[in-house]
């Protein structure tokens, strides 16, 4: 076998002594790096430019050897001298789950790479390793990705990389990706991630510049800063660590108190007169369980006087959690501990979907109000002829409020008067009625239409952020955008599924983001597409 062409060139240009010197250096590289049989095989293969053997040798390193090799600049220099772009990627992939994504990316960027290779490397790595890369403080990786991949790929890259959301957003802003990429990312993010990102004020400013003032998504994100999704509240003179721990634990249960209402509790407690505060403490210490205490505090936070809260505390005293959750909600509470299977609140008239949604919003915030509706008979039943045969109404309190809202709209010529369920039609826009209850809910709503005001992706991002805080979001559904047929309320989110209470049937159903995007909601009321939403804004 003759000498490699490179050596012949060296001999011709610099003489035998240069060749001997080089071979000595190469021998020393192999001798120095080949400290174990596997490393020795790798060093020799790289040194001999045997790419296939070198790639195979990478696959034969154990975890410790892989880590040591990937951390070494000398090994990397040896590899970049031997490998081309594609071979370097194959070598990194050959290490499997051994070694850090961090180092593998450095090796690939050092050699030269492309998005396809980067994606393959990222998705093969465990999530903590991806998080380590996207959280890198010096922005070296961010700048490498911005330089290497384009606008459309960056959204995919950060979603593959995973949270923290604040770094994902930072990378996307730096790249300047399209607005829907931000919306998709937020729609897929957890409440905790959204809250964490919302606290980075500099990021929020950059995001607002990037996606525009009219997005609605940034506004929602800025609200998310005010609500700790874990139900953590600040300590204060009247709000002890024990209070904080108790309420945070209750916030983790479905159907008791959500993050948005938890956030209002310390302020409500702090605003009490001294005598009322003393009385509240007596109520709390006399309560039979922490669940009772949480409902008492929720009632206070929804704006009730202490006298009203005291009466309420007496009614619920000593009742089990199951009883409390069933009687202090108007929806089916579906969770692992759920005991209900029937229907939640239902519209009592053919056109009272809006007023019923208003009732859902208030009842979700105000347990005294929810109890009052449940105390007046089944909220989940309705007469088909409530207008022509009022004696057939099963719950006159629920029907009375719904009818009053519609009657007021009819008088103001902003809607139609109640009609029988047997002949549905008409109705009213009820955002003003929602806002009239903002003392209880702590939220104001503004109607925004799909297509003319926002896209479905924006709507999903707004839903994700708000529902993650525990803020219910009424949406209007129909056959397609522009068909404003029916109010329903989005009340929970779990993964990529949204829980929707359809007030026509009183049923609470789960639908995916894809169902929204494709107009295949197929709700119990037979409506398929979102056509508008009532965008929430925290007011307290």
């Amino acid at each position, binding site marked *: 076998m003759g000498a490699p062409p490179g050596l012949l060139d060296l001999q011709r240009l610099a003489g035998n002594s240069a060749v001997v010197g080089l071979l000595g250096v190469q021998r020393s590289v192999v001798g120095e790096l080949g400290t174990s049989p596997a490393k020795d095989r790798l060093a020799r293969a790289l040194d001999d430019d045997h790419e296939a053997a070198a790639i195979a040798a990478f696959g034969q390193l154990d975890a410790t050897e892989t880590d040591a090799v990937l951390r070494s600049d000398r090994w990397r220099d040896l590899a970049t001298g031997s490998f081309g772009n594609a071979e370097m990627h194959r070598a990194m992939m050959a290490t499997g789950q051994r070694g850090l994504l961090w180092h593998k990316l450095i090796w690939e960027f050092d050699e030269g790479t492309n998005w396809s290779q980067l994606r393959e490397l990222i998705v093969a790595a465990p999530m903590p390793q991806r998080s380590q890369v996207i959280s890198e403080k010096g922005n070296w990786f961010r700048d490498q990705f911005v330089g290497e991949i384009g606008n459309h790929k960056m959204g995919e890259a950060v979603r593959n990389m995973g949270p923290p959301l604040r770094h994902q957003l930072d990378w996307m802003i730096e790249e300047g990706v399209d607005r829907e990429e931000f919306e998709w990312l937020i729609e897929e993010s957890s409440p905790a991630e959204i809250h964490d990102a919302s606290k980075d004020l500099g990021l929020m400013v950059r995001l607002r510049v990037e996606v525009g003032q009219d997005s609605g998504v940034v506004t929602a994100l800025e609200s998310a800063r005010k609500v700790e999704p874990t139900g953590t509240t600040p300590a204060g003179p009247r709000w002890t660590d024990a209070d904080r721990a108790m309420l945070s634990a209750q916030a983790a249960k479905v159907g008791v108190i959500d993050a948005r209402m938890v956030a209002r509790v310390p302020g409500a407690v702090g605003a009490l007169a001294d005598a009322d505060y003393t009385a509240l403490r007596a109520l709390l210490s006399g309560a039979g369980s922490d669940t009772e205490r949480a409902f008492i505090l929720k009632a206070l936070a929804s704006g009730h006087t202490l006298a009203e809260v005291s009466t309420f505390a007496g009614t619920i005293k000593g*009742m089990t959690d199951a009883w409390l959750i069933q*009687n202090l909600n108007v929806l089916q509470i579906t969770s692992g501990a759920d005991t209900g299977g*029937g*229907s939640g609140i239902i519209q009592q008239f053919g056109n009272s979907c809006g007023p019923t949604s208003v009732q859902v919003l208030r009842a979700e915030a105000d347990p005294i109000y929810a109890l009052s509706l449940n105390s007046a*008979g*089944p909220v*989940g039943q309705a007469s088909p002829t409530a207008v022509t045969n009022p004696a057939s109404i099963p719950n006159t309190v629920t029907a009375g409020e719904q009818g009053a809202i519609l009657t007021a709209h009819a008088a103001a010529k902003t809607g139609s008067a109640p009609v029988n369920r047997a002949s549905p039609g008409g109705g009213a826009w009820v955002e003003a009625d929602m806002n009239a209850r903002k003392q209880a809910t702590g939220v104001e709503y503004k109607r925004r239409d799909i297509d003319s005001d926002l896209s479905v992706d924006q709507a999903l991002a707004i839903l994700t952020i708000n529902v993650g805080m525990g803020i219910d979001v009424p949406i209007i559904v129909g056959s397609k955008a522009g068909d404003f047929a029916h109010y329903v309320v989005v009340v929970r989110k779990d993964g990529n599924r949204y829980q929707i209470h359809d007030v026509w049937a009183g049923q609470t159903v789960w639908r995916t983001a894809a169902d929204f995007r494709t107009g295949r909601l197929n709700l119990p009321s037979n409506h398929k597409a979102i056509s508008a939403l009532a965008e929430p804004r925290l007011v307290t």
Partner: protein
Amino acid sequence: MTSPDADDGHHDLRRADLLAVDVPALLAAGISESPGRIRGELQGTGQAAASVQLAASGLPLDMLGRMLTMVNRHTWQAAVADIDVIVEEPDKRGFPGASDIVRAGIAACHDGDDYELFARWLANVYGLAAIGASTALGGAG
């Protein structure tokens, strides 16, 4: 013209009869007489007796309303499993008669259709109690 509220003796007799009806036993005898049709005795005497007896026990109307709401929130099988929660409030607040009626009704159901009929029956009891409360006919005693 005689007021419908006037006590002509006949009213007292009917009321005494209704107070003596064993409503849980009526329920235990079965909910439906044919598919979708509640037994006539339950529909007539049973409803009226339950309404009068619950009012006579002093059961607050809102407590009955809450129990009715919970019956409606549950499917038949869930109600069987969750019966203690459904009747928890009257049990704990000292109204065993209300608890007995609902327990008997749920136990008498053979399927979801029976349960629907029972829920409707209880709603009618609530309706009668509400009328009684608003006209002071259903007061205690």
